[in-house]
């Protein structure tokens, strides 16, 4: 999983995605799937960014090239974070085509977080008991 800087994503999603995937293929890894996972507010700011776009990549590679891939990802400044983990099987949803999205719909960092969804509580029927406040 790669966390991408939204400032770079706004410049163009497909070129950015291709450049990230090229880092895997450059070292002989076979990319099985690379999809945009989500765009969301980060749990804590990274490099002054409050929001980021997650790219989920499934790839198969020799374990000896993981160090080189990791080093390339660290040098890329459009990546805020990345995480390489072993995966036993690739979920079927990863092979589905990526949903199209408009980069203009990415909210800015200054946008306030959405208000929490309050569940509506229906007034309880009167049971005869009174509550003193």
């Amino acid at each position, binding site marked *: *999983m790669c*966390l991408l800087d939204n400032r770079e994503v706004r410049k163009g999603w497909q070129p950015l995605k291709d450049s990230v995937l090229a880092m895997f293929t450059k070292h002989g890894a076979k990319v099985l799937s690379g999809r945009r*996972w989500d765009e969301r507010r*980060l*749990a*804590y700011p*990274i490099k002054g960014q409050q929001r*980021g776009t*997650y790219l*989920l990549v499934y790839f198969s590679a020799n374990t000896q090239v993981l160090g080189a891939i990791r080093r390339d990802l660290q040098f890329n400044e459009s990546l*805020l*974070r*990345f*995480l390489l*983990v072993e995966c036993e099987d690739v979920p079927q949803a990863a092979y589905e085509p990526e949903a199209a999205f408009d980069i203009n719909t990415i909210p800015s960092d200054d946008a306030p977080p959405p208000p929490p969804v309050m569940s509506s509580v229906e007034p309880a029927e009167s049971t005869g008991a009174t509550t003193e406040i």
Partner: protein
Amino acid sequence: MSNVNSSGGGFREGGREGGGARRSKFGRFGQKRREVLPEEPLDYKNVAYLAKFVSANGRIQSRKRTSFSGQNQRKLADAIKRARMVALMPFVGRI
């Protein structure tokens, strides 16, 4: 010989009338283990589910509270730590 059972106040281990065992706070016969369902895996991307096992300060709850087996508790801890690293979950506090 000295008498080890003090007669002072406080709870004495196994000191009930009749010698009964101390009842556990979380159930007398132990808790039922929580199962990991296929639709709710212990994965770092499943943030909404992982957040249930984090305290208000962001600490991972103990096995006593999560009721997971030892294997699944380790998976839970790994998933939460991975989610923290990619800023899906906070290190301190709740989402």
